Each structure stands twice: as C-alpha cells, then as structure tokens.
C-alpha cells in the first residue's frame, strides 16, 4: 500500500486501480502515475474531451447525469473485464459528471500492459463498453440556449433483455 497525497492506494487484485464517476476535474497524468510496474512496457492514457460542435451545431457545454451508485460498479466491472480479455496489467478509469465546457476532460482511461497491443485493446474495450452499459447521460447545450439529451447507444440491455451482467437468481 502506498500513500499518494491524501489518498491511500491499494493495488486491487483484479488490476483495477480506480474506477469511478466523479464531479472532480480529471487529470490523465494522475492516473498514469498510479499504474505500470517494471514488467509493463506500455502505458497509455486516453482523454475524452468536450468538443465545441456536434451534428453541425455549436455546443457550448455538456451536462452529464449519472446513476452514481450503479455507475461506479459497472465501470469497475468493465475495467476488470478489459484486463481479463486483453491481458493488460492495470487500468484506471474516471468519468466526470456535472456541467462541462469545451475542452474539459470528461473521461480518462489509463492502461498499463507488457506490450502496446493489449494496452490499446483494453483502452478501446473500456470506452466501447461504457458507451453501451454505463448508466450515465449527457445533455448538449447549444449556443442559442436550447438543450438536447443525446439518444445514446441502443444496446441489448435496452430491448427488454438482460445485458452482459449476470441475471438475478443465476438459474
């Protein structure tokens, strides 16, 4: 166990160093410093940022809403799966909520792995899956003052079937 600033960091057995939804400003460098050991030849970080345009409209801000309690659990599951699927060593992922303006960072995914390929694959896995499963929503705010909730992805879990999560009872 190490102490970074006021945070106590426990290396998780599943390799997920941090997985959380937060109102705090995101810092990819912070996550990068918390992952990667002597056996990791590749350490990468992805930052998703709020951009100032979408579908031909000028975006002045994004409002993110989340089901916080469930989102933290789903994010951790996704990160753990990414490690299992790709063989990456460690992942840290944070998604921001609240009111953001361009070019604020809305998502950070940091991955360490022995080689670059599993690192990139794990990063992509986390982003693809969170867009399908993370209970989190965004509302665009345009320069004319109007707003719009984005439709998001329609995944299998939204058609009356259960998602990749295990179902109640486990039958």
């Amino acid at each position, binding site marked *: 166990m190490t102490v970074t600033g006021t945070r106590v960091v426990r290396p998780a057995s599943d390799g997920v160093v941090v997985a959380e939804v937060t109102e705090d400003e995101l810092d990819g460098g912070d996550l990068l410093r918390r992952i990667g050991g002597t056996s990791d030849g590749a350490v990468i970080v992805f930052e*998703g940022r709020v951009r100032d345009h979408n579908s031909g409209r000028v975006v002045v801000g994004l409002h993110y*809403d*989340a*089901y916080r*309690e*469930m989102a933290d*659990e789903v994010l951790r599951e996704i990160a753990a799966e990414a490690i299992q699927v790709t063989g990456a060593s460690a992942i840290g992922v944070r*998604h921001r909520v609240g009111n953001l303006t361009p070019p604020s960072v*809305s*998502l950070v995914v940091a991955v360490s792995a022995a080689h670059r390929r599993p690192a990139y694959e794990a990063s992509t896995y986390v*982003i693809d899956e*969170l*867009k*399908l*499963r*993370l*209970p*989190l*929503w*965004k*509302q665009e705010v345009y320069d004319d003052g109007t707003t719009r*909730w*984005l*439709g*998001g*992805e*329609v*995944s299998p*879990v*939204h*058609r*009356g*079937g*259960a*998602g990749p*999560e*295990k*179902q*109640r*009872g486990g039958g």
Partner: protein
Amino acid sequence: MTGRFEVEVLLFGRHRELAGQSVVSVELAAGGTVADLRRALSGHPSVGTAMEGSAVALNRRYESDDSPVLEGDEVAVIPPVAGG
C-alpha cells in the same frame, strides 16, 4: 403470495426532466416482474411514452423482463446511455 406493494422507481436523464422529479411510485402485485413494472410505468402520465428503449435495473444490475421485482428492491429505469 397475495397483495400489492409500492415501488419507488429512480429516474435519470430525460425521464427525470419529463417527470419533473427523480422518483416516481408505481404499484405492483406480489410476484410482479420487470415486465409488469414496465406496463405500470407505461401508464404513467409523464414517463410513459419515454419508456421504450429503456432498460430496468434492480439493485444496480440490469435485469430482463422476466426477473421478479421484490419489495424493497432498488429499482431504476435506465434510458439509452450516452457516456464518453
């Protein structure tokens, strides 16, 4: 089992905006399922039309339509998500 019980349903995103509140209550019969919950919500004046395309989570897990809803479950309707 007999009787009915009240379920408090958490709302998010556009559902919360439509309803003007973050929780709505619906009544379910004992032994009711997620499908029954969907039917009950589809009759709700503000949320009803927006239910299509939404998932249901019980105790922070996505559940299929045939899963039972039990008294005391944490129930949430999850509109299509949009992270990233």
